[in-house]
């Protein structure tokens, strides 16, 4: 399990390759990348990502462990950036590897849903109309809650 909280960008291809090279039973690799995206309401120049430095590594590690426990996957990588990120830049990467696709897809989405409500990061958007703290999205709570309705291990 590789967990990294960092200012620097990451290389998606290299991260995926590094995780896959560890063993030959891996048949399915799911990855998710989150980007700083443009909004329709206020054009975004970039965003400042604040985090609770003493807690983020610990929170992401807990989420990773929970994913390894719940799903039939071999390994995973979570990288989350902080600091100033311009429009289009990568924010987060999650990679999950396993024998079969269904479990690797589920584990990847689970990690993102957990991270969205459980990892202490806050986005402040820099827009042409000023700087705005991003409001939490109710959809994220719903997405998080669905994983607690039942365990998904096959």
């Amino acid at each position, binding site marked *: 399990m590789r967990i990294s909280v960092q200012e620097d960008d990451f290389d998606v291809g290299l991260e995926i390759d590094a995780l896959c090279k560890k063993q030959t039973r891996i048949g399915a690799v799911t990855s998710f990348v989150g980007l700083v995206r443009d909004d329709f309401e206020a054009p975004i120049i970039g965003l400042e990502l604040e985090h609770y430095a003493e807690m983020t590594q610990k929170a992401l590690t807990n989420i990773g462990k929970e994913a390894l426990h719940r799903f039939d996957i071999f390994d995973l990588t979570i990288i989350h950036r902080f600091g100033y990120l311009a429009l289009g830049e990568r924010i987060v990467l999650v990679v999950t590897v396993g024998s079969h696709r269904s479990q690797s897809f589920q584990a990847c989405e689970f990690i993102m849903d957990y991270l969205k409500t459980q*990892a202490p990061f806050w986005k402040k958007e820099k827009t042409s109309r000023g700087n705005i703290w991003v409001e939490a999205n109710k959809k994220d709570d719903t997405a998080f809650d669905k994983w607690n309705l039942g365990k998904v291990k096959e």
Partner: protein
Amino acid sequence: MLKVLYFARLREIFGIASEEISGVPLETVADLKEWLAHRGEVWSCELASDKVVRAAINQEMATDVDKIHDGDEIALFPPVTGG
């Protein structure tokens, strides 16, 4: 003694990132919020209104009813928006 940290909007509005609080009998996260709200103005506006304020105790997500103890690091912050 409690170490209290503030993040994001709360850090900006309160104008501090952390402080140490001692000599006050506080049993839960809710007690701490209520005690801070008595400082008035932005404190009561942020902590005693219907705004959602999350908490962590010693770097673990916590809820209002969770107990706090001498030496704990308590963080207060808006709902997270990473990812």
